[in-house]
C-alpha cells in the first residue's frame, strides 16, 4: 500500500522498479525493516568513493526525507529509501515548465543539503572546505592546503555570483539556497542528476 502510494508520488518509478529496489533494500538491511548507516559499509564499491560519508549521510538526513523535523535519522525504512531514490528520477518529456522548475529545485535541494552539514540553511566556508577536501581526498598528492584554497576560490566565486558587488562591511556568511539556485542557473541539473535504473527496466543485479 505504501508502495503504490510512493509509486504515484514519485511519478515515473514503476512498480517493477520498486520491486527491484525493495529486493536491494532487503539485501542491504539483511532482511530488517530498516537500514542503518552501518549497512552501507557492506557495499564494497562504495568504499572508494571520496564523498561517501556525505552521500550516506544524505540518506539519513531528515530534510531529504520530507519530514518536518530536522536532524539525522537513526535508521530509514524502505519508504524513506524510495524517497531518497526519487531525487534521482530523470525528467520526463511531458513535464511542463512549472513541474520542471519544481523538479529542478528538488534535486538542488538534495545537493544543497549534502553540502550544508550543520543544517543552518547556509553552506559556510568551513562546510565548503570540508566538501572540497573530501572530493580531493582521492588524490593523495594534493595537500589539504590546496583543497582549502580551492574551496576559498569557489566561495569567492559564489559570493561574486550571488551578491555581486559587496557592500563595505557586508559579510558573505555562506551560500543560501537562493544563492545556490543562482549559481546553478544555466546548468541543466535536471539533465545531469539522475540514474538510469529509474528510467528503464532494471536488470536485477545483485552480488
Amino acid at each position: 500500500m505504501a508502495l503504490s502510494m510512493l509509486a504515484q508520488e514519485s511519478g515515473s518509478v514503476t512498480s517493477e522498479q520498486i520491486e527491484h529496489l525493495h529486493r536491494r533494500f532487503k539485501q542491504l538491511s539483511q532482511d530488517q525493516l530498516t537500514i542503518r548507516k552501518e549497512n552501507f559499509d557492506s557495499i564494497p564499491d562504495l568504499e572508494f568513493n571520496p564523498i561517501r560519508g556525505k552521500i550516506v549521510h544524505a540518506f539519513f538526513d531528515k530534510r531529504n526525507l520530507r519530514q518536518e523535523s530536522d536532524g539525522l535519522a537513526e535508521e530509514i525504512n524502505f519508504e524513506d529509501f524510495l524517497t531518497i531514490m526519487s531525487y534521482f528520477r530523470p525528467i520526463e518529456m511531458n513535464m511542463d515548465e512549472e513541474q520542471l522548475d519544481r523538479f529542478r529545485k528538488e534535486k538542488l535541494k538534495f545537493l544543497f543539503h549534502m553540502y550544508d552539514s550543520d543544517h543552518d540553511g547556509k553552506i559556510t566556508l568551513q562546510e565548503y572546505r570540508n566538501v572540497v577536501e573530501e572530493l580531493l581526498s582521492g588524490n593523495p598528492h594534493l595537500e589539504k592546503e590546496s583543497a582549502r584554497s580551492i574551496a576559498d576560490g569557489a566561495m569567492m566565486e559564489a559570493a561574486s555570483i550571488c551578491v555581486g558587488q559587496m557592500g563595505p562591511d557586508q559579510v558573505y556568511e555562506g551560500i543560501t539556497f537562493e544563492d545556490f539556485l543562482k549559481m546553478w542557473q544555466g546548468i541543466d541539473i535536471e539533465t545531469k542528476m539522475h540514474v538510469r535504473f529509474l528510467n528503464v527496466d532494471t536488470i536485477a543485479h545483485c552480488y
Partner: protein
Amino acid sequence: MDDVTSFPNASSTVFHLSRKVTSVVPESCLLILLGLGLGGIVLAVAKKAEYQLEPNMFFLFLLPPIVLDSGYFMPSRLFFDNIGAILTYAVVGTLWNSFATGTALWGLHRAGLMDPGIEAGLMDFLLFGSLISAVDPVAVLAVFEEVHVNETLFIIVFGESLLNDAVTVVLYKVFNSFVELGPAHIHATDYVKGVASFFLVSLGGTAVGLLFAFLLALITRFTKRVRIIEPLFVFLLAYVAYLAAEMVSLSAILAVTFCGICCKKYVEANISQKSRTTVKYTMKTLASSSETIIFMFLGISAVDTSKWTWDTALVLGTLFFILLFRAVGVVLQTYVLNRFRLIPLDRIDQVVMSYGGLRGAVAFALVILLDREKVKAKDYFVATTIVVVFFTVIVQGLTIKPLVTWLKVKRSDHHKPTLNEELHEHAFDHILAAVEDIVGHHGYHYWRDKWEQFDKKYLSQLLMRKSAYRLRDEIWDVYYKLNIRDAISFVDQGGHVHSAAKLSLPSMPSRTSMSESSVTNLLRESGSGACLDLQVIDTVRSRRDKEDAAMHHVLRGSLYKPRRRYKASYSRHFISPDKQERQDKEIFRQNMKRRLETFKSTKHNVCSSKSKARLKEKGRKKKNISLTKETANGKTHRSVPWQDAAPVLVMVSSEEEESDSSETEKEDDEGIVFVARATDEVLQGKTTPGSLDVCPSPCIIPPSPTLAEKELPWKGDQADLAVYVSSETTKIVPVDMQKAWNQSISSLESIASPPGIESGPQHRRFACPVLEEQPQSASQAMPEQSSCFQFPSHLSKSGRSQSDSSPDGPEQQELQPLMATEEQGRVPPSAEPRWLMFNKAGHL
C-alpha cells in the same frame, strides 16, 4: 602541389576577412563556389580540366589532419556520455541509409524511370548507396562549427560522421568486391565474411588507434629533454596510426579518431606548455588548410565534364531518397533511443539531425575510386555524387542556420568554466556512482567510476610523468587555470594601468574589458576579502596605529612587490619551460596566499587584512579623487576603477621626487586623511557608513575619497576648508553624504587634535589582492613605500614604529611630529612637474 595549396589558403583568408559574407554563407559553400569558378577559368583557358581531387591525395594527406584535429579536440566526456546514441546512428543509421537508398534507386531503375543507358544491377546501386549515404565529417564540421547548436546535438551528429567511416568503408569494399565478382559468383559465405569484416574493420581500427595512443602517451612521458620535438611525436604517431590502419585495410578514420581522443589526456599532461600550444595551433592550421583544399578541389573537379554523365531521374531520385531515408532513419532510431536516453532528443533535435546529414568529399573520393571497367554506371554515379555533395553543402549548409534559428534550437552557451561548476560536477559524478552502488545497479556511472579508478591507479601512473601525475586532478586543473588567468590578467592590467598612469588619464575601458567574473578581480573589486567577517570591527585597538602598521604591509607586501614578482614569474613561465614547475608552484602559492589571506576568518587575521583593506581603500580613494579631478568631470567618479588608482603604487620610479621636500609635505596631507576621515565618521555616529552600505560598491568610492580629500585641507589649512567643501563635495558626494559631511566638518572644526580619534570601521573595498604580509625591517622599507604612495618618509617611519611597538602610548608621541610636518608642509604644488602633483593641484 605547393602553389596549389597555398592558393586556396590565401583565398580562405580572404573569406575570413569578410565576416559579413561568412556570417550568412558557410565558408565551405564559398570555397566550393570559388573552386567552381576557378575550375571554369582553367577549363576555359586550358580546354581541359587540370586539377582533380585525387582520391589518393585526399585519403592520404587531406583527410588525416581533419580527423586528427577533431579527435584530439573532441570533448571526450561528452563523446563518451553520448556514445550509445552516436554508435547507433553511425552503425544502424548508416546501414539503413545505404541499403534503403540503394534498393530504392534500384527500384527506380527497374521501374524504367531512369535512362536505360545506365547499366547497373542491384549490387551497383547498393555500392552507390553505401558511398552516398555516409554523413561526412568534413562537411558536418565545416557547417556545424558555424551554427553553434547545443553540444549534445553537435556531438551526436559529428560523432556519427566520424564513426560511420567504418561502416562506409566496409560496405564500400564489400559491395565493390561483389560487383567485381559479379552477382552470380557470390556465395552465402561472402555475406558472412562481409559482416565479419565489419567488426574486424571497426574494432581493428579502434584497436590500432588505442595502441598508438598508448605509445604516444608513453613516449611523451620521456621527452623531457627534447621538448622541441614533442609536437612532432604527436603528429607523427597519429599519422602512423592512420597509415597503419589504412595499410591493413582497417578503418583509418576510426584509428586516428580514437588515437586523438585517448592520448590527449596524457599527452597534454606530459608535454610542456609551449608544445601544447604548438600542437594546438599546428593541428588547427593543418585541419583548416586541408578543409579549404578539399572544398576548393571539389569545386574544381566538378567542372570536369568528361568525368560525368547526367541523368535527371537518378540525380533527383538520389537527392529525394537520401533526404527521406535520413529523416526516417533518424526518427525511428531516436524513437528507440529515447527509451534509453536520460535526456531525450526532442523533435527539433531530430529535424536538425536529419537536415544536418551532409555529404562531402569522402563520398566524392570514393566514387572517383570506382573502377569504370567493373562499375559501368560510374559516370552517372559521379555526376549524382557531385550534385548531392553540392546540394547538401550549399543548399543545406546555407539554410541550416536560419532553420536552427527559426526552430529555436537550444544553442550552446559558451560560459567560462567556474570553479563551483567543476566542483559540483565532480560531486555529481561521485553521487551518481554511489547511488548506483547503493542500488546495486551497474550502470553507466558505475563503469565510469570504475574506469576512473583504474585510470588513476594504473594508466596515469604509467603514462604520465611523475610530476604531472601528482598534480593531476580536474578540479585542481580548473583552479589552476583560473589562477593563471587571473595572474596574467593581473600583470596585464598592471602594465596597462602603469602606462595609463603615466599619461595621467584614467583609462576607463580597461576595467570593462577585463573579465569581470574572475576570482581575483572579485577579490580586488568586491572586496569580499574584507567582508567576510564583521566581528573584526569590534576588536578595537588603536585604529590609527593599526592602519598605519597595516599600510606598511599593504604597500610593501601587496602593491609594489607582488606586481614585480608577478611579472617576473609570468615571463619566466613563458620563456623557460624548464623552470615551469617551479613557477607554477610559485604562482599558485602567491595566489593561494592571497586568497587565503582574504578569507582568513580567525580574528586577528581578518583584522589585519581588514584594516589593510581599509587602508588600501583610502589610498585608492585618494588616487581616485585625484584622477577624477584631473579629468575634471563629475561622472568619472563612479567608474574610476581601482586599477586606475593603483598606479600610485607603481610610481616607485619617481624616487628623486620623493626627496623633494615640497612633495613630501604634500603627501603629508594625504597621510592625515585617515585620521580626519575617521574622525568624521566617529563623530557622526556613523551616518555615513549607513548610507554607504546601501550603495553598490562602485558608487561608494567617490564619496569617501572626497571626504578624505576634503579633509586634507582641513589638516593643512583650516581656512581653505570651506572652499573645498563647497566646490568638491557638492560635485561628488550624494546629498545625504553631503549632510554628513557638513556635520563632520563642523565637528572637526571643533576638535583640536585629530590624532587621538580612531578611524571608523567603514572602509570598503579591498583594492588589491594581498599577497603576503611581510614583516619588515621598516626603516629601509618605508622610504620606498612612501614613494609609492606618496607618503613622506618620516611620516611612514612614524607609522612603522607604531606598528612595531604597537602599544598606544608611543602613538601620541609619534603623532606630534606628524602634525608638525603637516603644518610646515604646505608648499605650493606648482613646483611639481610630475603627475604626482596633480593630486595637489586638484585640491587647490
